[in-house]
């Protein structure tokens, strides 16, 4: 460790012997294992890689500014979505959400985006594509999505809470429209000092997705506006 190591880099050494009882029903424990600069089209960030004791998924944090020991740090949780984030799918608003959050953080003094690799556990990606195929046939139902393994309400926020704890934050301002995320993090001892609304306009492809997300999960969304690009 170099003498001028940043507070984030110091976490790597701190966590080499970190071992706790774990967060959430899965008793997940994470360690900060690697930190590097990540200049991006959204601005200068540091990327933090986490190891966890439950699966081979490598969760990461995109960190803007000095966050260790800070209060009211803006935080966004983003769940991996291969089709949206990487392929630019219009069936969901994941890529827009991701870009909007990173763009916002790029203009701020501080901010953290947790990129949670929650997709593709087991056969998650196969079943997601099966779910899209059902949607194409108009057979997208709550029961079918449950059978395919999608249950919004039961998401475990233990990993995210532990990642925030590991980054040594005093309190966060959560960028979300989802009250479950607020509650989920608070249950694991994260101090949420405020909420930053995060809303994007609907498009003709994802309007149904957004509406059902609001109806099923109690998201704070407003659909009074016309979706972009539709006249019907």
């Amino acid at each position, binding site marked *: 460790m170099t003498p001028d190591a940043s507070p984030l880099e110091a976490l790597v050494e701190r966590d080499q012997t970190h071992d706790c009882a774990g967060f959430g029903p899965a008793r997940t424990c994470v360690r900060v294992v690697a930190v590097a600069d990540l200049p991006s089209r959204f601005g200068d960030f540091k990327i933090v890689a986490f190891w966890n004791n439950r699966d081979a998924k490598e969760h990461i944090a995109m960190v803007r500014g000095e966050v260790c020991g800070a209060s009211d740090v803006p935080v966004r949780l983003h769940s991996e979505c291969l089709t949206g984030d990487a392929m630019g799918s219009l069936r969901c608003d994941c890529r827009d959400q991701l870009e909007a959050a990173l763009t916002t953080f790029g203009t701020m003094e501080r901010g953290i985006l947790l990129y949670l690799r929650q997709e593709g556990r087991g*056969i998650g990606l196969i079943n997601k594509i099966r779910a899209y195929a059902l949607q194409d046939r108009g*057979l997208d*139902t709550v*029961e079918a999505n*449950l*059978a395919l*393994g999608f249950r919004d309400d039961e998401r475990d926020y233990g990993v995210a809470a532990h990642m925030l704890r590991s980054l040594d934050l005093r309190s966060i301002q959560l960028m979300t429209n989802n009250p479950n995320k607020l509650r989920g993090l608070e249950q694991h001892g994260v101090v949420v000092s405020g909420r930053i609304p995060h809303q994007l306009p609907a498009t003709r492809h994802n309007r149904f997705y957004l509406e059902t997300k609001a109806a099923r999960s109690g998201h704070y969304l407003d659909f009074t506006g016309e979706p972009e690009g539709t006249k019907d």
Partner: protein
Amino acid sequence: MVYPRARMLDRRPGEELHEVVVIGAGIAGLACAGALAAAGRQSLVVDKGRGVGGRCATRRIRDQPVDHGVAFYHGEHPEFLAALAAVPATALPGWPQRIVGQGPPCQPEAFTRGHSRLAFVEGATAFPKALARGLALRLATRIVAIEVGDASLCLRLEAGPSLQTRELVLTPPAAQTLALLPRCAELASARALLDLVPAQPCLTLMLGYAGDGPRPEFDVCYPEDSPLQMIVHDSAKRSAAGQVVLVAQATRAWSRAQLEREASSWQATLLAEVARVVGPWAHEPVWLESHRWRYAHAGSPALASPMLVSLPGGARIGLAGEAFCAGAGVQGAYLAGLALARRMLAGQACGEETR
């Protein structure tokens, strides 16, 4: 879900009324009925077969048990392992120990770290028999149609009075469930999902040899480049085996290609293959029996959870079975049955909101 007593169903003459009927006395159906019973919900388990267990099957041949379906149990889930540990039979922990051949196991995860394996000296049916204890069973009963009534479902039997129930659990393989599932809009997505996981067949040969003759040095063999998926040294599981018994199971692809052919033709090919792998002595069995498992393995990859669909009148249909749990296998069937029972007890059925 609590049913108001005042809203009793009209029982038509010659119909039996049940609160819950479970179709299929395999592991999923028994696990579901058992979990319901543990919470005080009585159900009737109906199966077309003469015994319980479905593919966890044992035949008695010349006074010796022969497992011609599931060859051994494996899993890592604590609840599944606890259920196996509670079976009042002689377990052989870690069986099979002697494994040869470079071919792929039917379920490769069986041999991954963290998975326990075991067999029962009394036969594979020891497990379903233990699960079935205390449950109301009606075996050798074939259901030919399910009709949706106002607040109930009517199950028409091949013979005897119909069964009327408010809640129905279907656990047979996808094709058989599809054939029975009422064609109503609420079940359209269930039909579509069942179409994704069609079960695959397995042609099975059972071979008996003299107890004082040669026997293989393995418990299980996975031959390479063969129509055989596995050869099981079944008599190695028995404490006092009077005869050497081998069970040979064909691969899915080969079974599918041969499924509708005369049994004598595929029996001869499989017997020759057993002799090629095990030794020429195996070509002359004292007896030979076979079984055509039309639905041996759930289609893969499986779905993740059981379904519970509410019909407009208030009746509910649950779907469970090996195909409704990530991971599949016997453990998958057991966990899917448990998960469905828990959802039924929690009363958290979603109305099917079609788009």
